[in-house]
């Protein structure tokens, strides 16, 4: 374990160009219930940031805010700004479809479409209707290589995605998101439905992906957060309690609530 050998820039020393996402006083109300209350955090580029917290604390909502998936819920009220590339993605004139190609997302349960492996990975590219068949083929191959799945599926690209195992499916989901070359990749508990070996695979994959992508991950598994993430945010009842580099958070938590949570006192 390389927990102590890791070198991460402390959050306060980040320069503006190193910040991928800048969340400013974000509040989210879903179905008339406050889920996130005045959250401000800056997510560093080319790093893995974990969001931890109890079930129902708003972790997933925070993640969903970054590609505006909260708006799929009919009754929503979102205030505050989220800056990406000097643009406020919460602005009402933001092109949401384009935003979502730029901010990829992988869900807890692998959700391959009832299509072939090829069609699954190419789905997002086909939607944009501006790439030639050859470009799409290349992008699919690259995405599958980056997701570490190419060697396993290169001979059966045109078979249904359902035939893959759970771990393979989850990597396929990552490849599907990567095919669009997103700057930010949101992972919502990506390994909670997988066995330990598949989990290890995904974790190694994330380490290699962070070379060219910013990764934000929600996880229930604190060992995982400590193991692979550079920064960790602890959220409790819709508020951001503590947010710092993972080493500091897991070794010297500054807040009592954080300490209680990471030592397992909150059930």
């Amino acid at each position, binding site marked *: 374990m390389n927990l102590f050998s890791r070198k991460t820039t402390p959050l306060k020393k980040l320069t503006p160009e190193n910040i991928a996402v800048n969340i400013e006083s974000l509040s989210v109300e879903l179905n008339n219930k406050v889920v996130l209350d005045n959250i401000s955090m800056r997510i560093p580029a080319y790093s893995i940031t974990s969001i931890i917290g109890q079930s129902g604390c708003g972790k997933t909502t925070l993640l969903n805010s970054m*590609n505006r*998936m909260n708006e*799929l819920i*009919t009754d929503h009220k979102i205030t505050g700004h989220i800056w990406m590339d000097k643009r406020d993605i919460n602005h009402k004139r933001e092109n949401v*479809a*384009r935003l*979502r*190609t730029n901010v*990829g*997302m992988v*869900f807890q*349960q692998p*959700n391959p*479409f*009832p299509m072939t492996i090829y069609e699954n990975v190419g*789905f*997002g590219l086909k*939607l*944009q209707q501006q790439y030639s068949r050859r470009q799409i083929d290349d992008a699919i191959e690259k995405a599958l290589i980056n997701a570490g799945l190419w060697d396993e599926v290169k001979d059966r690209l045109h078979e*249904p995605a*359902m035939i893959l195992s759970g771990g393979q499916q989850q990597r396929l*989901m990552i490849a*599907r*998101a990567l095919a*669009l070359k997103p700057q930010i990749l949101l992972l919502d508990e990506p390994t909670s439905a997988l066995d330990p070996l598949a989990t290890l695979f995904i974790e190694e994959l994330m380490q290699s992906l962070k070379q060219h992508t910013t990764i934000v991950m929600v996880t229930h598994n604190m060992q995982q957060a400590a193991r692979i993430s550079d920064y960790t945010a602890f959220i409790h009842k819709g508020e951001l309690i503590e947010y710092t580099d993972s080493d500091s958070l897991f070794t010297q938590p500054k807040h009592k609530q954080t300490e209680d949570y990471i030592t397992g006192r909150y059930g």
Partner: protein
Amino acid sequence: MTKLYKPDNSFITINLAASAAAMLSLALIGLIMFVLIKGLSYFIVYPTVNVQITDKHGNALEYYAQLYDDKEVQEEHVLLVYHPNTQKNQQLFVHDDNIIYRPIIHPIWTLHLNDGSKIFASHLTLQSSSEPNKIERYSRAAYSDLRDEIYQLQTQLRTLTKTLIPLNIELATFTESGSMKDKIRYEKTHMQIMSLMAQKQQLETQLNGIQIHYQQADGTPLSIPLYQVDYLIDSNGLSWLERMSVSALKIWNFMSDDPKQSNASGGVFPALFGTLLLVFLMTILVMPFGVLTALYLNEFAPYNYFTIILRTIITNLAGIPAIVYGVFGLGLFVFVIGTTLDQWLYSDTLPSPTFGAPGLLWAALTMALLTLPVVIVSTEEGLRQVPEGLKKGAMALGATKFEMIIKIVLPIASPSIVTGGILAIARAAGEVTPLLLVGAVMSAPVLPVDNEFPFIHLERQFMHLGVLVFDGVFHSQTTIDESSMMFATCLLLILIVIVLNSMASWLRYRLKKQYDWQ
């Protein structure tokens, strides 16, 4: 004393359920067998007999007749005879004691006329029009020679009629304008028509001159023009294979011919065509509406009292009696919309209505309305089965809601949508009640599709298999042929529904295989 174990009475339930299922399957098999046997008897070649019948006044009558039952078994017999005076077939019910079966010395032929009746006759001779005095015995070669001649004459007649029609129209326009300049041309056209008419008359005389002579059982010689005969067979002298081919011919005629003898004989082609066209039009109308409504209810509509009430209404629409739909269609489509359309678009032909009368379009719309709830309910079921994760996944890849619905939701729901279509089609193919009010008729002069612009005439009335059966019920009391024609129509209706269902089931199976997400 306490019970140590509960007595197991489940065998009663099992037996009850099993016997219910058994009764149901028996009823189903019975229904299908009944329709099958009754219907297929329309295509059977019955034997002909030479009989002497004593009627209730004590007169002895000689007949060649078709015998519908086994003369060894029953006491009351059904015989079909032909009366040359009325030119109609009659069915006789005669007791065994009143029949004397006479030996068949000369073969008894059955002449199937193209008006649907049958002549039973012996001693066939053929007479050609070119040599009226030369009468030769019936032989297959001579018969087919004459058939060729008739065919040629009829072709010539048809082309003549075709050239006559525009000339007549031209003549009519001349008469209207009436100027002197046209007078010469008028005379010329008139002369042309006269000469063509004379030609036509000559051809018709020639056609009528080709005669077939025959003898009745009592020896009376009679004759009819040969072109009135569709085909003739010697039912007693047929081999097993020939019998089968005659039956096949009868089946083909049934599918391709017009009904004859006021829907009591002949074929059902216009009704078959009308039914299929109606079902096709209805499907085109109902599917987009039903699927869009279901999409709205399931994907877009907010969950509130309004949508709950709307859903309940739609579900309950399926239970409304079909006649109510018929009355509604007549009231709204025909009387209100049709009449208004006529005033706007066809005011020059008023007061004779174009769309203001029952017709194919209104029937298709009424049927679409009738089957709409089925499609909506079944589509919604399919839409509800689409996993939320897939929808979210598509959205997260930058799909708009529209793209998500087209690429993910509709393909996955497609088996259910097809199921809705199947149910709608099966219902529309068999439903009669509303059609009687909004456009189906017992006998339509023309098909709703022809080679005249705009090729498909939605305002025309049409025939429908179900309506034909309904009509057949009133005839079925008179002769066995007529009742078996009705059953043959029933059989065809069942077959159509089965074929449509299996086609749709196969499609559903394929779609399900392709879009299985589990």
